[in-house]
Protein backbone atom coordinates (compact mmCIF):
# COMPACT_ATOMS: atom_id res chain seq x y z
CA UNK A 1 0.00 0.00 0.00
CA UNK A 2 1.50 3.36 -0.95
CA UNK A 3 1.87 5.88 1.85
CA UNK A 4 -0.55 8.38 0.35
CA UNK A 5 -3.14 5.66 -0.01
CA UNK A 6 -2.54 4.73 3.61
CA UNK A 7 -3.29 8.36 4.49
CA UNK A 8 -6.63 8.10 2.74
CA UNK A 9 -7.33 4.82 4.48
CA UNK A 10 -6.49 6.35 7.88
CA UNK A 11 -8.85 9.21 7.14
CA UNK A 12 -11.67 6.75 6.49
CA UNK A 13 -10.78 4.63 9.51
CA UNK A 14 -10.98 7.67 11.79
CA UNK A 15 -14.36 8.54 10.27
CA UNK A 16 -15.45 4.96 10.93
CA UNK A 17 -14.52 5.08 14.60
CA UNK A 18 -16.28 8.43 14.95
CA UNK A 19 -19.38 6.97 13.31
CA UNK A 20 -19.31 4.23 15.96
CA UNK A 21 -19.75 6.94 18.56
CA UNK A 22 -16.17 7.13 19.83
CA UNK A 23 -15.07 10.49 21.18
CA UNK A 24 -13.54 12.39 18.26
CA UNK A 25 -10.26 13.05 20.07
CA UNK A 26 -9.79 9.35 20.90
CA UNK A 27 -10.59 8.28 17.34
CA UNK A 28 -8.06 10.70 15.86
CA UNK A 29 -5.43 9.84 18.47
CA UNK A 30 -5.79 6.06 18.06
CA UNK A 31 -5.73 6.08 14.24
CA UNK A 32 -2.91 8.64 14.21
CA UNK A 33 -0.88 6.49 16.61
CA UNK A 34 -1.51 3.21 14.78
CA UNK A 35 -0.76 4.77 11.38
CA UNK A 36 2.47 6.33 12.60
CA UNK A 37 3.43 3.01 14.17
CA UNK A 38 2.90 1.23 10.86
CA UNK A 39 5.00 3.80 8.97
CA UNK A 40 7.82 4.37 11.45
CA UNK A 41 7.89 1.45 13.87
CA UNK A 42 7.61 1.37 17.62
CA UNK A 43 10.49 3.78 18.37
CA UNK A 44 8.88 6.48 16.28
CA UNK A 45 5.41 6.17 17.73
CA UNK A 46 6.79 5.87 21.26
CA UNK A 47 8.57 9.18 20.86
CA UNK A 48 5.53 11.08 19.59
CA UNK A 49 3.20 9.53 22.20
CA UNK A 50 5.58 10.68 24.89
CA UNK A 51 6.24 14.18 23.64
CA UNK A 52 3.35 15.40 21.47
CA UNK A 53 0.65 15.56 24.20
CA UNK A 54 2.96 17.92 26.09
CA UNK A 55 3.74 20.07 23.03
CA UNK A 56 0.16 20.13 21.76
CA UNK A 57 -0.99 22.48 24.51
CA UNK A 58 2.30 24.16 25.41
CA UNK A 59 2.32 27.25 23.13
CA UNK A 60 1.82 30.52 25.00
CA UNK A 61 -0.75 31.72 22.47
CA UNK A 62 -3.10 28.89 23.56
CA UNK A 63 -3.58 30.63 26.91
CA UNK A 64 -6.40 32.58 25.25
CA UNK A 65 -8.51 29.41 25.14
CA UNK A 66 -9.06 28.78 28.88
CA UNK A 67 -9.07 32.47 29.74
CA UNK A 68 -11.72 33.45 27.21
CA UNK A 69 -13.74 30.37 28.19
CA UNK A 70 -13.62 31.58 31.81
CA UNK A 71 -14.72 35.03 30.71
CA UNK A 72 -17.72 33.56 28.87
CA UNK A 73 -18.66 31.23 31.72
CA UNK A 74 -18.55 33.95 34.37
CA UNK A 75 -20.42 36.39 32.15
CA UNK A 76 -23.08 33.76 31.66
CA UNK A 77 -23.46 32.61 35.26
CA UNK A 78 -23.48 36.07 36.73
CA UNK A 79 -26.37 37.04 34.51
CA UNK A 80 -24.24 39.51 32.56
CA UNK A 81 -25.02 37.94 29.22
CA UNK A 82 -28.66 37.67 30.21
CA UNK A 83 -29.02 41.40 30.71
CA UNK A 84 -26.99 42.06 27.56
CA UNK A 85 -29.28 39.89 25.46
CA UNK A 86 -32.36 41.43 27.05
CA UNK A 87 -31.17 44.78 25.79
CA UNK A 88 -30.52 43.45 22.32
CA UNK A 89 -33.91 41.80 22.39
CA UNK A 90 -35.55 45.08 23.40
CA UNK A 91 -34.01 46.76 20.38
CA UNK A 92 -34.37 44.16 17.64
CA UNK A 93 -36.25 41.21 19.18
CA UNK A 94 -39.36 42.05 17.21
CA UNK A 95 -37.49 41.22 14.02
CA UNK A 96 -37.51 37.50 13.43
CA UNK A 97 -34.07 35.92 13.90
CA UNK A 98 -32.74 39.15 15.38
CA UNK A 99 -30.90 37.49 18.24
CA UNK A 100 -29.13 35.08 15.87
CA UNK A 101 -28.11 37.92 13.57
CA UNK A 102 -26.84 39.81 16.60
CA UNK A 103 -24.81 36.75 17.57
CA UNK A 104 -23.14 36.82 14.15
CA UNK A 105 -22.33 40.49 14.74
CA UNK A 106 -21.00 39.72 18.22
CA UNK A 107 -18.76 36.96 16.81
CA UNK A 108 -17.31 39.30 14.20
CA UNK A 109 -16.82 41.93 16.90
CA UNK A 110 -15.14 39.36 19.14
CA UNK A 111 -12.88 38.53 16.20
CA UNK A 112 -11.32 41.94 16.73
CA UNK A 113 -10.17 40.75 20.17
CA UNK A 114 -9.34 37.15 19.52
CA UNK A 115 -7.47 35.28 16.83
CA UNK A 116 -8.69 31.80 17.77
CA UNK A 117 -11.83 30.31 16.23
CA UNK A 118 -12.18 27.76 19.00
CA UNK A 119 -11.93 30.37 21.76
CA UNK A 120 -14.47 32.57 19.95
CA UNK A 121 -16.95 29.72 19.66
CA UNK A 122 -16.52 28.67 23.29
CA UNK A 123 -16.88 32.23 24.59
CA UNK A 124 -19.77 33.39 22.42
CA UNK A 125 -21.37 29.96 22.83
CA UNK A 126 -21.46 30.24 26.63
CA UNK A 127 -22.92 33.73 26.38
CA UNK A 128 -25.37 33.43 23.50
CA UNK A 129 -26.66 29.85 23.52
CA UNK A 130 -28.58 29.94 26.83
CA UNK A 131 -30.06 33.30 25.89
CA UNK A 132 -31.27 32.24 22.49
CA UNK A 133 -32.73 29.15 24.14
CA UNK A 134 -34.51 31.31 26.70
CA UNK A 135 -36.01 33.38 23.92
CA UNK A 136 -37.36 30.25 22.25
CA UNK A 137 -34.79 29.83 19.47
CA UNK A 138 -34.39 26.37 18.02
CA UNK A 139 -31.10 24.69 18.96
CA UNK A 140 -30.21 23.84 15.37
CA UNK A 141 -30.30 27.55 14.50
CA UNK A 142 -28.54 28.87 17.59
CA UNK A 143 -25.67 26.34 17.74
CA UNK A 144 -24.95 26.58 14.02
CA UNK A 145 -24.95 30.38 14.23
CA UNK A 146 -22.30 30.30 16.94
CA UNK A 147 -20.17 27.68 15.15
CA UNK A 148 -20.21 29.64 11.90
CA UNK A 149 -19.68 32.99 13.61
CA UNK A 150 -16.42 31.68 15.04
CA UNK A 151 -14.86 31.56 11.57
CA UNK A 152 -15.37 35.29 10.94
CA UNK A 153 -12.64 36.50 13.26
CA UNK A 154 -9.84 35.06 11.17
CA UNK A 155 -10.15 37.87 8.60
CA UNK A 156 -10.29 40.56 11.25
CA UNK A 157 -6.97 41.55 12.88
CA UNK A 158 -5.58 40.24 15.16
CA UNK A 159 -4.99 37.48 12.68
CA UNK A 160 -1.83 35.44 13.03
CA UNK A 161 -2.92 33.41 10.00
CA UNK A 162 -2.67 36.43 7.70
CA UNK A 163 0.73 37.31 9.18
CA UNK A 164 1.99 33.79 8.49
CA UNK A 165 0.61 33.87 4.96
CA UNK A 166 2.41 37.18 4.41
CA UNK A 167 5.63 35.62 5.63
CA UNK A 168 5.33 32.62 3.34
CA UNK A 169 4.57 34.59 0.19
CA UNK A 170 6.42 37.79 1.02
CA UNK A 171 3.28 39.83 0.50
CA UNK A 172 2.57 42.99 2.47
CA UNK A 173 0.87 42.18 5.76
CA UNK A 174 -0.66 45.65 5.85
CA UNK A 175 -2.32 45.04 2.46
CA UNK A 176 -3.55 41.62 3.59
CA UNK A 177 -5.16 43.17 6.68
CA UNK A 178 -6.89 45.84 4.62
CA UNK A 179 -7.86 43.39 1.89
CA UNK A 180 -9.48 41.11 4.49
CA UNK A 181 -11.93 43.76 5.72
CA UNK A 182 -14.55 43.64 2.94
CA UNK A 183 -14.50 39.82 2.62
CA UNK A 184 -14.92 39.61 6.41
CA UNK A 185 -17.85 42.00 6.33
CA UNK A 186 -19.29 40.13 3.36
CA UNK A 187 -19.06 36.89 5.36
CA UNK A 188 -21.02 38.41 8.24
CA UNK A 189 -23.67 39.84 5.89
CA UNK A 190 -24.12 36.52 4.11
CA UNK A 191 -24.48 34.69 7.43
CA UNK A 192 -27.13 37.23 8.43
CA UNK A 193 -28.86 36.68 5.11
CA UNK A 194 -28.71 32.90 5.62
CA UNK A 195 -30.42 33.33 8.99
CA UNK A 196 -33.04 35.69 7.59
CA UNK A 197 -33.93 33.30 4.78
CA UNK A 198 -33.99 30.30 7.08
CA UNK A 199 -36.35 31.87 9.64
CA UNK A 200 -38.60 33.13 6.87
CA UNK A 201 -38.97 29.57 5.59
CA UNK A 202 -39.28 28.13 9.10
CA UNK A 203 -40.76 30.82 11.38
CA UNK A 204 -40.99 28.34 14.27
CA UNK A 205 -37.18 28.30 14.59
CA UNK A 206 -37.07 31.83 15.99
CA UNK A 207 -40.15 33.38 17.59
CA UNK A 208 -40.30 37.15 17.42
CA UNK A 209 -40.79 39.14 20.61
CA UNK A 210 -43.15 42.05 21.07
CA UNK A 211 -41.85 45.45 20.09
CA UNK A 212 -40.40 47.44 23.00
CA UNK A 213 -40.81 51.20 23.40
CA UNK A 214 -37.83 53.54 23.38
CA UNK A 215 -38.07 54.37 27.08
CA UNK A 216 -37.81 50.73 28.00
CA UNK A 217 -34.95 50.22 25.58
CA UNK A 218 -32.99 53.04 27.16
CA UNK A 219 -33.70 51.87 30.71
CA UNK A 220 -32.41 48.41 29.82
CA UNK A 221 -29.37 49.91 28.12
CA UNK A 222 -28.54 51.74 31.34
CA UNK A 223 -28.44 48.41 33.18
CA UNK A 224 -25.64 46.91 31.12
CA UNK A 225 -23.10 49.70 31.17
CA UNK A 226 -20.61 47.49 33.06
CA UNK A 227 -20.64 44.86 30.33
CA UNK A 228 -20.24 47.50 27.65
CA UNK A 229 -17.38 48.97 29.68
CA UNK A 230 -15.66 45.57 29.89
CA UNK A 231 -15.84 45.09 26.13
CA UNK A 232 -14.69 48.64 25.53
CA UNK A 233 -11.75 48.05 27.86
CA UNK A 234 -10.70 44.82 26.18
CA UNK A 235 -10.99 46.12 22.61
CA UNK A 236 -9.75 49.62 23.40
CA UNK A 237 -6.81 48.23 25.34
CA UNK A 238 -5.65 46.23 22.33
CA UNK A 239 -5.95 49.14 19.91
CA UNK A 240 -4.34 51.63 22.30
CA UNK A 241 -1.38 49.31 22.77
CA UNK A 242 -1.98 48.70 26.48
CA UNK A 243 -1.84 44.95 26.01
CA UNK A 244 -1.46 42.35 23.25
CA UNK A 245 -4.38 40.33 21.89
CA UNK A 246 -3.12 37.30 23.80
CA UNK A 247 -3.08 39.27 27.04
CA UNK A 248 -6.58 40.60 26.35
CA UNK A 249 -8.01 37.22 27.31
CA UNK A 250 -6.64 37.64 30.84
CA UNK A 251 -8.10 41.14 31.12
CA UNK A 252 -11.47 39.80 29.96
CA UNK A 253 -11.43 36.89 32.41
CA UNK A 254 -10.45 38.99 35.41
CA UNK A 255 -12.90 41.73 34.40
CA UNK A 256 -15.81 39.31 34.01
CA UNK A 257 -15.02 37.72 37.36
CA UNK A 258 -15.11 41.05 39.21
CA UNK A 259 -18.26 42.20 37.41
CA UNK A 260 -19.87 38.93 38.43
CA UNK A 261 -18.64 39.38 41.99
CA UNK A 262 -20.05 42.89 42.33
CA UNK A 263 -23.30 42.08 40.56
CA UNK A 264 -24.17 39.94 43.59
CA UNK A 265 -25.15 37.00 41.39
CA UNK A 266 -21.96 35.09 42.10
CA UNK A 267 -23.25 32.70 44.74
CA UNK A 268 -21.54 29.56 45.95
CA UNK A 269 -23.64 27.58 43.51
CA UNK A 270 -22.92 29.68 40.43
CA UNK A 271 -19.23 29.80 41.29
CA UNK A 272 -19.14 26.02 41.53
CA UNK A 273 -21.01 25.64 38.25
CA UNK A 274 -18.65 28.13 36.58
CA UNK A 275 -15.57 26.27 37.74
CA UNK A 276 -16.71 22.85 36.56
CA UNK A 277 -18.04 24.11 33.26
CA UNK A 278 -14.67 25.73 32.57
CA UNK A 279 -12.95 22.48 33.53
CA UNK A 280 -15.09 20.26 31.29
CA UNK A 281 -15.03 22.59 28.30
CA UNK A 282 -11.30 23.36 28.32
CA UNK A 283 -10.38 19.74 29.08
CA UNK A 284 -12.34 18.70 26.02
CA UNK A 285 -10.84 21.38 23.73
CA UNK A 286 -7.29 20.60 24.82
CA UNK A 287 -7.74 16.87 24.39
CA UNK A 288 -9.04 17.43 20.86
CA UNK A 289 -5.88 19.42 20.13
CA UNK A 290 -3.84 16.45 21.38
CA UNK A 291 -5.76 13.89 19.31
CA UNK A 292 -5.58 16.07 16.19
CA UNK A 293 -1.85 16.54 16.78
CA UNK A 294 -1.28 12.77 16.74
CA UNK A 295 -3.37 12.41 13.62
CA UNK A 296 -1.42 15.17 11.89
CA UNK A 297 1.90 13.43 12.61
CA UNK A 298 0.55 10.46 10.70
CA UNK A 299 -1.09 12.41 7.88
CA UNK A 300 2.05 14.45 7.16
CA UNK A 301 4.14 11.32 7.10
CA UNK A 302 1.99 9.80 4.39
CA UNK A 303 2.74 12.76 2.13
CA UNK A 304 -0.95 12.89 1.19
CA UNK A 305 -1.26 16.71 1.13
CA UNK A 306 1.82 17.07 -1.08
CA UNK A 307 0.59 14.36 -3.42
CA UNK A 308 -2.79 16.07 -3.84
CA UNK A 309 -1.10 19.40 -4.56
CA UNK A 310 1.16 17.71 -7.12
CA UNK A 311 -1.95 16.29 -8.80
CA UNK A 312 -3.53 19.73 -8.95
CA UNK A 313 -0.34 21.29 -10.30
CA UNK A 314 0.21 18.74 -13.03
CA UNK A 315 -3.44 18.46 -14.06
CA UNK A 316 -3.03 21.06 -16.82
CA UNK A 317 -6.47 22.47 -16.13
CA UNK A 318 -7.53 26.08 -16.53
CA UNK A 319 -7.27 28.65 -13.71
CA UNK A 320 -10.92 28.36 -12.63
CA UNK A 321 -10.85 24.56 -12.43
CA UNK A 322 -7.59 24.67 -10.49
CA UNK A 323 -9.02 27.25 -8.11
CA UNK A 324 -12.07 25.08 -7.46
CA UNK A 325 -9.86 22.06 -6.82
CA UNK A 326 -7.75 24.06 -4.39
CA UNK A 327 -10.87 25.15 -2.52
CA UNK A 328 -12.15 21.56 -2.27
CA UNK A 329 -8.69 20.42 -1.16
CA UNK A 330 -8.68 22.89 1.73
CA UNK A 331 -12.17 22.05 2.89
CA UNK A 332 -11.30 18.34 3.02
CA UNK A 333 -7.94 18.89 4.69
CA UNK A 334 -9.66 21.20 7.16
CA UNK A 335 -11.44 18.22 8.64
CA UNK A 336 -8.34 17.17 10.52
CA UNK A 337 -5.70 19.83 10.37
CA UNK A 338 -5.75 23.14 12.16
CA UNK A 339 -5.70 26.16 9.89
CA UNK A 340 -2.21 27.22 10.95
CA UNK A 341 -0.55 23.91 10.00
CA UNK A 342 -2.52 23.82 6.78
CA UNK A 343 -1.34 27.28 5.74
CA UNK A 344 2.29 26.63 6.68
CA UNK A 345 2.34 23.30 4.92
CA UNK A 346 0.45 24.05 1.73
CA UNK A 347 0.96 27.71 0.87
CA UNK A 348 4.65 27.34 -0.08
CA UNK A 349 3.56 24.63 -2.53
CA UNK A 350 0.45 26.39 -3.82
CA UNK A 351 1.71 29.98 -4.08
CA UNK A 352 3.89 29.13 -7.12
CA UNK A 353 0.85 27.49 -8.74
CA UNK A 354 -1.13 30.67 -8.04
CA UNK A 355 1.62 32.80 -9.58
CA UNK A 356 1.79 30.60 -12.68
CA UNK A 357 -1.92 31.16 -13.15
CA UNK A 358 -1.52 34.94 -12.69
CA UNK A 359 -3.51 35.12 -9.47
CA UNK A 360 -2.88 38.13 -7.25
CA UNK A 361 -1.18 36.88 -4.08
CA UNK A 362 -3.09 39.19 -1.73
CA UNK A 363 -6.36 37.95 -3.19
CA UNK A 364 -5.17 34.34 -3.12
CA UNK A 365 -4.22 34.73 0.54
CA UNK A 366 -7.62 36.04 1.58
CA UNK A 367 -9.36 33.23 -0.31
CA UNK A 368 -7.09 30.55 1.13
CA UNK A 369 -7.38 31.78 4.71
CA UNK A 370 -11.16 32.01 4.33
CA UNK A 371 -11.51 28.52 2.98
CA UNK A 372 -9.10 27.04 5.55
CA UNK A 373 -11.56 28.16 8.22
CA UNK A 374 -14.57 26.64 6.46
CA UNK A 375 -13.19 23.19 7.27
CA UNK A 376 -13.96 24.02 10.90
CA UNK A 377 -17.72 23.96 10.27
CA UNK A 378 -18.11 21.23 7.66
CA UNK A 379 -19.41 17.84 8.86
CA UNK A 380 -18.54 15.18 9.68
CA UNK A 381 -15.46 16.60 11.37
CA UNK A 382 -15.34 20.27 12.23
CA UNK A 383 -13.74 21.58 15.40
CA UNK A 384 -16.19 24.48 15.76
CA UNK A 385 -19.11 22.06 15.60
CA UNK A 386 -17.61 20.01 18.43
CA UNK A 387 -16.86 22.99 20.61
CA UNK A 388 -20.33 24.47 20.18
CA UNK A 389 -21.94 21.14 20.96
CA UNK A 390 -19.91 20.89 24.15
CA UNK A 391 -20.82 24.48 25.07
CA UNK A 392 -24.49 23.78 24.56
CA UNK A 393 -24.33 20.72 26.80
CA UNK A 394 -27.60 19.06 25.87
CA UNK A 395 -27.84 19.33 22.09
CA UNK A 396 -27.22 16.23 19.91
CA UNK A 397 -24.57 16.55 17.21
CA UNK A 398 -27.24 15.71 14.65
CA UNK A 399 -29.03 18.97 15.47
CA UNK A 400 -25.88 21.05 15.16
CA UNK A 401 -24.99 19.52 11.80
CA UNK A 402 -28.50 19.98 10.47
CA UNK A 403 -28.36 23.68 11.21
CA UNK A 404 -24.96 24.32 9.69
CA UNK A 405 -25.83 23.80 6.01
CA UNK A 406 -27.27 27.26 5.30
CA UNK A 407 -24.04 28.75 6.65
CA UNK A 408 -21.87 26.49 4.51
CA UNK A 409 -23.98 27.59 1.58
CA UNK A 410 -23.37 31.22 2.56
CA UNK A 411 -19.63 30.52 2.62
CA UNK A 412 -19.77 28.92 -0.81
CA UNK A 413 -21.56 32.00 -2.12
CA UNK A 414 -18.90 34.19 -0.51
CA UNK A 415 -16.08 32.18 -2.10
CA UNK A 416 -17.81 32.27 -5.47
CA UNK A 417 -18.11 36.06 -5.18
CA UNK A 418 -14.47 36.43 -4.16
CA UNK A 419 -13.32 34.24 -7.04
CA UNK A 420 -15.61 35.91 -9.59
CA UNK A 421 -14.95 39.47 -8.37
CA UNK A 422 -11.39 39.74 -7.00
CA UNK A 423 -12.06 43.48 -6.75
CA UNK A 424 -13.89 42.81 -3.45
CA UNK A 425 -10.49 41.95 -1.97
CA UNK A 426 -8.28 44.26 -4.01
CA UNK A 427 -10.25 47.51 -4.03
CA UNK A 428 -9.45 48.69 -0.50
CA UNK A 429 -5.71 47.92 -0.60
CA UNK A 430 -5.64 49.74 -3.95
CA UNK A 431 -7.06 52.83 -2.27
CA UNK A 432 -4.67 52.73 0.65
CA UNK A 433 -1.34 52.21 -1.14
Amino acid at each position, binding site marked *: MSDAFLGLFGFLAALGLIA*LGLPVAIAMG*VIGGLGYWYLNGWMGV*AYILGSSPFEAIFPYSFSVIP*LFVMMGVFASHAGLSRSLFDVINAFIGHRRGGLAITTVGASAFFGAICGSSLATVATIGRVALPEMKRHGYDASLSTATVAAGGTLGVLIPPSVLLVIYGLLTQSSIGQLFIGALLPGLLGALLYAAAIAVRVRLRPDLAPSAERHGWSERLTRLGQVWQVVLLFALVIGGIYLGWFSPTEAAAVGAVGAFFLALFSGELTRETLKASVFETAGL*TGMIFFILIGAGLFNFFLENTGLPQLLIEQIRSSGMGPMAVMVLILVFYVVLGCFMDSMSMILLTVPLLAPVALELDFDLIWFGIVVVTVAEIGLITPPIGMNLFVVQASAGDVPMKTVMKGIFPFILADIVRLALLVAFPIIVLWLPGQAF
Partner: protein
Amino acid sequence: MNILAGLARGLITALAALGVIAYGLAALVTVADIIGRRFGLPIEGVVDLVQLFVVGGAWLVMPYAFLSAAHVSVDFLVENMPRGLAVPLKLFAGVLALGLLGLMLWQGFLTFRTRTMFGDTSQQLGIPIAWYWYPLLVGLAVSLIAVVVELTASLRREARA
Protein backbone atom coordinates in the same frame (compact mmCIF):
# COMPACT_ATOMS: atom_id res chain seq x y z
CA MET B 1 -16.60 -0.43 45.05
CA ASN B 2 -18.96 2.50 45.57
CA ILE B 3 -16.65 3.93 48.18
CA LEU B 4 -13.72 3.70 45.78
CA ALA B 5 -15.72 5.35 43.01
CA GLY B 6 -16.76 8.08 45.43
CA LEU B 7 -13.15 8.69 46.44
CA ALA B 8 -12.10 8.81 42.81
CA ARG B 9 -14.83 11.33 41.99
CA GLY B 10 -13.73 13.45 44.91
CA LEU B 11 -10.13 13.41 43.73
CA ILE B 12 -11.09 14.25 40.14
CA THR B 13 -13.32 17.18 41.09
CA ALA B 14 -10.68 18.53 43.47
CA LEU B 15 -8.09 18.43 40.69
CA ALA B 16 -10.52 20.17 38.33
CA ALA B 17 -11.04 22.98 40.83
CA LEU B 18 -7.30 23.25 41.29
CA GLY B 19 -6.85 23.42 37.51
CA VAL B 20 -9.34 26.28 37.16
CA ILE B 21 -7.60 28.10 40.01
CA ALA B 22 -4.39 27.74 37.99
CA TYR B 23 -6.11 29.36 34.99
CA GLY B 24 -7.17 32.16 37.34
CA LEU B 25 -3.58 32.64 38.44
CA ALA B 26 -2.49 32.87 34.79
CA ALA B 27 -5.04 35.64 34.27
CA LEU B 28 -4.02 37.47 37.46
CA VAL B 29 -0.29 37.34 36.67
CA THR B 30 -0.96 38.75 33.19
CA VAL B 31 -3.13 41.58 34.50
CA ALA B 32 -0.58 42.36 37.22
CA ASP B 33 2.10 42.61 34.53
CA ILE B 34 -0.07 44.84 32.30
CA ILE B 35 -0.68 47.24 35.19
CA GLY B 36 2.81 46.89 36.66
CA ARG B 37 4.67 47.74 33.46
CA ARG B 38 2.87 51.08 33.21
CA PHE B 39 4.68 51.99 36.41
CA GLY B 40 7.98 50.41 35.49
CA LEU B 41 7.24 47.31 37.58
CA PRO B 42 6.77 44.53 35.04
CA ILE B 43 6.60 40.93 36.24
CA GLU B 44 9.71 39.19 35.08
CA GLY B 45 9.22 36.11 32.95
CA VAL B 46 5.45 36.52 32.81
CA VAL B 47 5.24 34.30 29.72
CA ASP B 48 6.91 31.43 31.59
CA LEU B 49 4.50 31.80 34.49
CA VAL B 50 1.40 32.01 32.30
CA GLN B 51 2.51 28.89 30.43
CA LEU B 52 3.12 27.06 33.70
CA PHE B 53 -0.34 27.92 35.02
CA VAL B 54 -2.18 27.23 31.77
CA VAL B 55 -0.39 23.95 31.02
CA GLY B 56 -0.83 22.92 34.66
CA GLY B 57 -4.51 23.85 34.61
CA ALA B 58 -5.16 22.08 31.33
CA TRP B 59 -3.77 18.77 32.59
CA LEU B 60 -5.46 18.96 35.97
CA VAL B 61 -8.92 19.48 34.45
CA MET B 62 -8.39 16.66 31.91
CA PRO B 63 -9.68 13.81 34.18
CA TYR B 64 -12.84 15.81 34.83
CA ALA B 65 -13.53 16.04 31.12
CA PHE B 66 -13.32 12.22 30.96
CA LEU B 67 -15.43 11.73 34.06
CA SER B 68 -18.20 14.05 32.88
CA ALA B 69 -17.98 12.54 29.37
CA ALA B 70 -17.45 16.05 28.05
CA HIS B 71 -15.55 14.68 25.06
CA VAL B 72 -17.67 15.19 22.00
CA SER B 73 -18.77 12.38 19.78
CA VAL B 74 -21.04 12.05 16.80
CA ASP B 75 -24.19 10.43 18.06
CA PHE B 76 -26.73 10.06 15.27
CA LEU B 77 -25.44 6.86 13.68
CA VAL B 78 -25.18 5.09 17.02
CA GLU B 79 -28.75 6.06 17.90
CA ASN B 80 -30.03 4.00 15.00
CA MET B 81 -28.03 0.91 15.86
CA PRO B 82 -29.54 -2.08 17.62
CA ARG B 83 -29.70 -1.70 21.41
CA GLY B 84 -27.58 -4.81 21.94
CA LEU B 85 -24.57 -3.11 20.39
CA ALA B 86 -24.50 -0.30 22.94
CA VAL B 87 -22.59 -2.21 25.62
CA PRO B 88 -19.89 -3.70 23.35
CA LEU B 89 -19.38 -0.29 21.71
CA LYS B 90 -19.01 1.42 25.08
CA LEU B 91 -16.49 -1.21 26.15
CA PHE B 92 -14.60 -0.84 22.87
CA ALA B 93 -14.43 2.96 23.26
CA GLY B 94 -13.33 2.58 26.87
CA VAL B 95 -10.57 0.12 26.00
CA LEU B 96 -9.24 2.39 23.23
CA ALA B 97 -9.29 5.40 25.55
CA LEU B 98 -7.46 3.45 28.26
CA GLY B 99 -4.93 2.16 25.74
CA LEU B 100 -4.20 5.60 24.32
CA LEU B 101 -4.00 7.30 27.71
CA GLY B 102 -1.92 4.47 29.14
CA LEU B 103 0.63 4.65 26.31
CA MET B 104 0.78 8.44 26.64
CA LEU B 105 1.40 8.14 30.36
CA TRP B 106 4.07 5.47 29.97
CA GLN B 107 5.96 7.20 27.15
CA GLY B 108 5.30 10.60 28.70
CA PHE B 109 7.03 9.43 31.86
CA LEU B 110 10.08 8.37 29.84
CA THR B 111 10.17 11.72 28.02
CA PHE B 112 9.77 13.48 31.37
CA ARG B 113 12.81 11.59 32.67
CA THR B 114 14.88 12.49 29.60
CA ARG B 115 14.02 16.17 29.77
CA THR B 116 14.69 16.47 33.48
CA MET B 117 17.95 14.56 32.99
CA PHE B 118 18.99 17.17 30.41
CA GLY B 119 18.22 19.77 33.07
CA ASP B 120 15.78 21.61 30.78
CA THR B 121 14.36 24.84 32.13
CA SER B 122 11.85 27.47 31.00
CA GLN B 123 13.21 30.11 28.62
CA GLN B 124 13.11 33.28 30.75
CA LEU B 125 12.98 32.34 34.42
CA GLY B 126 14.77 29.03 34.28
CA ILE B 127 11.93 27.19 36.06
CA PRO B 128 12.81 23.45 36.01
CA ILE B 129 10.85 21.81 33.21
CA ALA B 130 9.72 19.10 35.64
CA TRP B 131 7.20 21.58 37.06
CA TYR B 132 5.48 21.67 33.66
CA TRP B 133 5.46 17.88 33.51
CA TYR B 134 4.09 16.92 36.94
CA PRO B 135 0.56 18.10 36.02
CA LEU B 136 0.73 16.05 32.79
CA LEU B 137 1.70 12.88 34.66
CA VAL B 138 -0.94 13.41 37.34
CA GLY B 139 -3.57 14.38 34.75
CA LEU B 140 -2.98 11.33 32.56
CA ALA B 141 -2.83 8.91 35.50
CA VAL B 142 -6.06 10.21 37.03
CA SER B 143 -7.69 10.33 33.57
CA LEU B 144 -7.22 6.54 33.42
CA ILE B 145 -9.19 6.26 36.67
CA ALA B 146 -11.80 8.69 35.34
CA VAL B 147 -12.36 6.58 32.23
CA VAL B 148 -12.93 3.48 34.37
CA VAL B 149 -15.33 5.25 36.74
CA GLU B 150 -17.30 6.77 33.88
CA LEU B 151 -17.40 3.48 31.98
CA THR B 152 -18.67 1.53 34.99
CA ALA B 153 -21.34 4.12 35.72
CA SER B 154 -22.52 4.22 32.13
CA LEU B 155 -22.58 0.41 31.81
CA ARG B 156 -24.70 0.31 34.95
CA ARG B 157 -27.11 2.81 33.42
CA GLU B 158 -27.21 0.63 30.28
CA ALA B 159 -28.00 -2.47 32.38
CA ARG B 160 -30.87 -0.69 34.10
CA ALA B 161 -32.32 0.61 30.83
